[in-house]
C-alpha cells in the first residue's frame, strides 16, 4: 500500500494505491489523519483509481475520516471509483455521507 498527498486550496487529495483491508487501513488511518492535521486541511478527497481490492474495513476507515472531517466543517469525497469498489460502497450506504465524482477536476470544483 502506498499513500501520496497533494494539497489543493483547503482540500487534501489522497492517492491510495493497493488494497484496502483491515491490515492496510490501520496505516492509512494514521497517515491520513497526521497529514490532515499538519496541513490544516478542511476537505478530504480520495482517489480510488488504484485501489485494486476493498472490503468492509475500507468502509470503516472512510466512516472514521468522515467523523473527523465533519468536525472541522469540511467534506469528504471520492473520485475514480472502480466498479469493484463501488459494490461495497453501495452496499454500505456510505454514499449518503460522501459524494463520488467522475474526475478530480469535478470533485475539486464541487468542494471549493
Amino acid at each position, binding site marked *: 500500500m502506498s499513500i501520496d498527498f497533494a494539497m489543493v486550496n483547503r482540500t487534501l487529495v489522497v492517492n491510495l494505491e493497493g*488494497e484496502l*483491508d*483491515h491490515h492496510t487501513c490501520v496505516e492509512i*488511518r494514521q497517515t491520513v489523519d497526521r497529514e490532515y492535521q499538519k496541513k490544516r486541511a478542511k476537505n478530504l478527497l480520495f482517489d480510488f483509481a488504484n485501489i485494486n*481490492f476493498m472490503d*468492509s474495513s475500507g468502509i*470503516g476507515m472512510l466512516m472514521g475520516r468522515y467523523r473527523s472531517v465533519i468536525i472541522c466543517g469540511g467534506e469528504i469525497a471520492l473520485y475514480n471509483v472502480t466498479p469493484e469498489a463501488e459494490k*461495497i460502497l453501495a452496499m*454500505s450506504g456510505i454514499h449518503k455521507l460522501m459524494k463520488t465524482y467522475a474526475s478530480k477536476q469535478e470533485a475539486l470544483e464541487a468542494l471549493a
Partner: protein
Amino acid sequence: MPKRNSMQIQFSSNSLNESFARVAVAAFISQLDPTVEELYDIKMAVSEAVTNSIIHGYDNSEDYEICIKCAYEDGVVSIEVIDYGKGIADIEEAMTALYTTSADEERAGLGFTVMQSMMDEIQVFSEVGNGTTIKMKKSLGV
C-alpha cells in the same frame, strides 16, 4: 477443468495474512475459470471472515492459527474459515448489519452482511471459548 478438488491452508492470525488468505483462495478457485466479479466476491467474503477471526476471535493477537478449507464440486465452491478463538456468544446479534463489538477500532459492522451478499449460503458455528467456523458456498457460472 477438474470436476472436484480441495485444498487446505493454515496460517498465523497476523493481519498481513488477510491478503495472503484471499489471494490463496482466489488462486485455487481460478482452476474453475471464474469471472472477475465472482473472484472478487469470493475474495471479499474470505477477507471478511479472516478479519473477523483476527479481530474478534483472537483480539488482534498474532500468536494463533486460522485454517481455511476450500473445495469445489460441479462448479459449487465451499469455503470454511476456522479459528480456535473466543467464539461468539450471540450469533444472530453478531450477524446484524452495523453491529460491532469493536468500540475503539473503526469497524463498519458489515463483515457478515458482506459475506451474506457475496456468497449464496453462509452458516456460522460457534461456541464461547471454542472458536468459530464459518461455512460459505457459492455456485459459479449462475
